[in-house]
């Protein structure tokens, strides 16, 4: 009997066949476990790859290259009277600073070579307006370079390959090498990127216009979706009778949360723009569209927060004579507020990153000025990223990544705030 067990039967642990089977099964176990680790590593690796690619190609957009050159503030060329301009610097607002900049550039770098950015004359104007006494003198100034020189200075191009394959000319490369060896180039903080609006020239393009558009939109979204979401959640969770109407409301909220965002864009286009004739590209329309998209999310989060408040609180308040409305507004809401706020903030983060519905309502306009109000044409940061990503020039690729870095930083900030709020105020019953 013992003999038989040891050799032939399925439970013969000592037999070679059994040992092989066990080894195989353990090998499969290790393999399976390895697959799990591999899947996790792949997903994490992709995230890391994505972030490093974006940061590597985008961090340079926070730096700008400037070139040192001598500019003569010749009143005749500027087209202003020196004495009058010294008395009233506002006269300089329409003076021909482009002209003196062009002259200086032609003289120092040769005709027809663009080294200085087209927008750099604004620096000269601001200088002259701040100190009109420089009129008639020659000043050494640092001016913003064109995107090509900027990219050369940042080492974006592989100069070992044939120059004909590069988007920069041989003249530009030669000039850059000369200026670099003479110490006439410097790279510093790119303030324009953080304070400017869109531009056709990558070196002049900034994200503040888009960022402000996003903020204006989020204000509208928050003001509309937060009260709506919280009030609906209170009604559904605390007062609604179990009937067909309540079911319809519940089903529509749950479905809205899963509707593709682009459908909300179609709704915004058909209702807000074509039926109600609201202004195209305006933050108020974008905010309304995003509010309709965000508020089901807030309802779902708020309902969970209200559900988490224990019934004993309600019973105690009712027991000492509070009315049902008083119970909810004096006791349940204050206790559920942290959860509601967390859900709202997460909804806002989602709205901030949303692009597709905004394209539908015309927020992809090319705008070179910062929006000033809720009804003026504006764009949003994700849409700006989309617009720039269409542009193949090296300068805009860098700016796109830079804008993505800013967007991700804001999302990190918002989500961090939500986590902080949750940890600080969440009560576990």
């Amino acid at each position, binding site marked *: 009997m013992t003999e038989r067990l040891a050799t032939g039967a399925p439970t013969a642990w000592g037999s070679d066949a059994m040992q092989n089977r066990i080894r195989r*099964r*353990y090998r*499969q*176990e290790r393999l*399976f*476990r390895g697959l*799990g680790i591999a*899947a*996790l590593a792949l*997903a*994490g690796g*992709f*995230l890391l790859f*994505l972030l490093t*690619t*974006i940061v590597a190609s985008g961090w340079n957009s926070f730096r700008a290259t400037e070139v040192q050159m001598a500019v003569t503030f010749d009143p005749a060329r500027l087209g202003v009277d020196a004495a009058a301009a010294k008395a009233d610097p506002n006269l300089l607002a329409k003076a021909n600073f482009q002209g003196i900049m062009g002259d200086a550039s032609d003289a120092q770098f040769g005709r027809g070579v663009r080294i200085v950015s087209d927008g750099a004359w604004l620096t000269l104007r601001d200088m002259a307006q701040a100190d009109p006494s420089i009129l008639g003198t020659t000043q050494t100034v640092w001016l913003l370079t064109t995107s090509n020189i900027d990219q050369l200075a940042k080492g974006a191009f592989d100069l070992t390959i044939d120059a004909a394959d590069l988007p920069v000319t041989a003249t530009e490369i030669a000039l850059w090498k000369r200026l670099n060896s003479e110490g006439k180039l410097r790279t510093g903080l790119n303030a324009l990127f953080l304070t400017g609006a869109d531009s056709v020239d990558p070196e002049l393009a900034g994200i503040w216009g888009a960022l402000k558009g996003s903020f204006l939109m989020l204000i509208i979204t928050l003001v509309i979706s937060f*009260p*709506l979401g919280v009030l*609906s959640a209170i*009604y559904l969770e605390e*007062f609604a009778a179990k009937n067909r109407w309540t079911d319809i*409301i519940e089903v*529509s*909220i*749950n*479905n*809205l949360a*899963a*509707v*593709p965002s*682009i*459908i*909300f864009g*179609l*709704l915004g286009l058909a*209702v807000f723009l*074509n039926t109600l004739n609201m202004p195209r590209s305006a933050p108020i329309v974008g905010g309304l569209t995003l509010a*309709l998209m965000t*508020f*089901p999310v807030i*309802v779902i989060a708020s309902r969970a927060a209200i559900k988490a408040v224990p019934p004993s609180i309600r019973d105690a308040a009712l027991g000492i004579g509070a*009315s049902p*409305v008083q119970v909810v507004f004096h006791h349940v809401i204050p206790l559920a507020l942290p959860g509601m706020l967390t859900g709202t903030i997460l909804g806002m*983060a989602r709205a901030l*990153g949303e*692009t*597709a519905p905004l*394209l*539908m309502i*015309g927020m992809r306009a090319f705008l070179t000025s910062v929006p000033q109000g809720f009804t003026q044409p504006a764009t949003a940061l994700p*849409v700006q*990223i*989309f617009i720039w*990503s269409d542009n193949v020039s090296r300068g805009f*690729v860098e700016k*796109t*990544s830079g804008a993505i870095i800013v967007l*991700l930083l804001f*999302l990190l900030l918002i*989500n961090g705030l939500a986590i902080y709020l949750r940890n600080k105020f969440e009560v576990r019953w």
Partner: protein
Amino acid sequence: MSGIGAMFAAAFGLGVLAWWLGRRKALAFVAAPGGDRIGAVHSLPQYHGAFVAILALLPALVVLAFWGLAGNGLVAAEVLAGLPEGTRPQPGLDQAAFLSEVRGLVRGDYAAAFNPVAEGAAKAWVAVERRYAILFGVAALAVGLMGALWGWTRLRPDFRARSRVERLVMGLLILASLVATLTTFGIVLSLIFESFRFFQMVPITEFLFGLNWSPQTAIRADQVGSSGAFGAVPLFWGTVFIGAIIAMIVAIPLGLMTAIYLTQYSAAGFRKVAKPVLEVLAGVPTVVYGFFAALTVAPAVRDFALSIGISDASSESALAAGMVMGVMIIPFVSSMADDALAAVPASMRDGSLAMGATPSETIRKVLIPAALPGIVGGVLLAVSRAIGETMIVVMAAGMAANLTANPFNSVTTVTAQIVALLTGDQEFDSAKTLSAFALGLVLFLVTLALNIFALSVVKKYREAYD
């Protein structure tokens, strides 16, 4: 609409004043002889205040809201009527263009008028608008004051102010919760309405079963290729190919395996770190994925395809867009699988382990089969999310409506076409623009059906184990 903000502020000021007056009167009840106990008054003083404030605010806000919504139309009608005969623009497009120019002049958007008639109309507009603004402002103030006065006279110690205020609060709650239903109806109605107009121009059978998509309708009748073809099958195929096939080939194994590893194998500490990191993948905006797919993944995929000898590889391949979309969906699949696995009773798992099965055998032969309906439901939800995803395909998948199964070729999707059709110049009556709404309707119905079906599968199965 000059000064409408100030009018709203004034209305709220009136409300605050009414609240203070009502509350003061109620406080006087308590102080009055015979009413020296707060209990002699039915409602707390602030409810009396709120009652008066509501009676003041509500009518005033109704008047102001009417002015805000209908004011432009009223002013426009009067300005048009005031124009001399013969210079009046024809109703329709002419009139809309004229009015938008006038409004632009009034706002100061344009330095000078293109149309000399508009110059005069702009002046008239300012005058008419001011007159109406004063009219409505005074009307709002009057009804507000009347409401407040009436409410104030009704206050008595036994007046049930709280019940009335609470009834209004309930009305507000119900209104708020109706917005969701209204939005759903708004979506359905606007999609159906515009689609209906589209199907009057293009037969529905051609749209649903046609194999040729080229929505460019001509401006001139004799232009080459002016007919415009609206067979959406290539778009449906592209959507399924990218969102339901390629993306899922990436997302299902990775999502499932990460969920299995994190729930069944990893230590609690590691799980606590790894899960949020995974969730970050879902939090990255889709436009970022789109940029990454177009800039980094798509060229790599094309180079790979060329290196293995596929000469017609596109730089906007279905594979690149689908892969990146799959990565985006991983956390979603993972958390659905997580829920499904967690719902399997521990006794089943323990039983299997007690019989000597290794953990992986338990997972493969007990947990996954038991959790399969939940996992399938989760995958269907993920598919519904993937086919509705827009930015990745707009940026990385291209616009060529090919009916191909070659992942290195370019295909286009429903969402990408909606964006292409509705950005840039649009005239709202052309079949090209309206076709976007028909595509939107199909997308809405399909995602809705997928969601309802998937949720019912998940729910039904969960009940089976509860």
